[in-house]
C-alpha cells in the first residue's frame, strides 16, 4: 500500500471498522513507514485528547439562568390553571 491509500483508510482504521485483510496490509505498511506511523499515532492522540477532555464547569450565572428557566417551565406545566389557559 502507498502512504496516500493509508491516509484514505485512516478514519476506518482508527475506528477499527476495516476488514482484517485490509487492516493487516495497513499494519504491514506502518511497520515500514515511520511517517505514516507518526500520522496514525498523532491522529489517535488527537481523538483521545478531545475525547478525554472534561467540559469546564458551567459558569454560575449560566447555571442559575438555566435552572430558573427550567423551574419556570416545569411549574407552568404542573399548574392546572396554566394548562387551562
Amino acid at each position, binding site marked *: 500500500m502507498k*502512504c496516500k491509500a493509508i491516509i484514505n483508510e485512516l*478514519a476506518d482504521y482508527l475506528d477499527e471498522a476495516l476488514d482484517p485483510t485490509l487492516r493487516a496490509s495497513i499494519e504491514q505498511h506502518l511497520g*515500514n513507514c515511520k511517517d505514516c506511523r507518526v500520522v496514525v*499515532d*498523532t491522529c489517535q492522540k*488527537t481523538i483521545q485528547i478531545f475525547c478525554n477532555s472534561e467540559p469546564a464547569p458551567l459558569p454560575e450565572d449560566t447555571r442559575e439562568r*438555566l435552572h430558573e428557566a427550567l423551574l419556570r417551565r416545569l411549574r407552568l406545566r404542573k399548574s392546572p390553571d396554566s394548562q387551562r389557559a
Partner: protein
Amino acid sequence: MDRFSMSSPKLDPVRPRPPLPSTVVKDDESALVAAAKGGDISAFETLVGRYERKIFRLAQNITQNREDAEDAMQESFLKAYEHLDEFQGNSRFYTWLVRIAVNQALMKLRRRRPNVVSLDQEVDTGEDMMPREVEDWGPSPEDRYGQTELAGILGKVIGELDPPFRIVFQLRDIEELSTEETAEALGLSVPAVKSRLLRARLKLREKLNQYFRRGEHS
C-alpha cells in the same frame, strides 16, 4: 536497515468505541427518565445536572458564541422535558439529548451565519489530504498543559474548523455517537460523515501539532 525499516508498529491500541453503559448506570438513568416522565421534577433536574456541562460545551463548539450556546442549552433541556414522552429508550438518554441540542445549536448558528452553514451541501474533501507536518508528539502531550490551558487550546483549534467538519467531529469523537447516529442526526450519508470526519481529524492533528510536537513547551 534504513531508518524506516523498523519493527512492527508499537502504537497504543486503537481507542475502542465506547463500551455500552454499565447496567447500573443504565438502570439509574432509565429510572431517572421514568421518574421524570411521571412528573418528578427533581429526577429531571438530576439529569440536567449530569449533562449540563457537556451540552453547554457542545453548543459552544457548534455556535462559537457564548450567548447562543447558553440559549441553545436552555432550549434543549426545555424541549427534552416537553418531549420526554417521545423518548422510547431505544438509545441512551444522552444520545437523544445530544440530537436535540445539535438541532438547537444549528438553528442558532444558521441564524447568525445564514449563508455559511448548510450541512447537507457537498463539501470539498477532495483536496490532497496528505499531512504536511509529520512530527512525533511524545507519549502524553496533554500533560504539558494545565486543564484550563488545554481546554482553551482545544476550544480554539476546533473553532477554527469550518462548521461541516467541526460538527461531525464534535458528534463522533467528543460525544461518541456512532457514524450512523451522526449521519442520522445531521441528515448526512454515512460516507459523507466518514469523509468529513477524516478531514476534521487530520486538520485538528495538524493544528495541535504546534502545541504538542516534541520539544514544544517543554
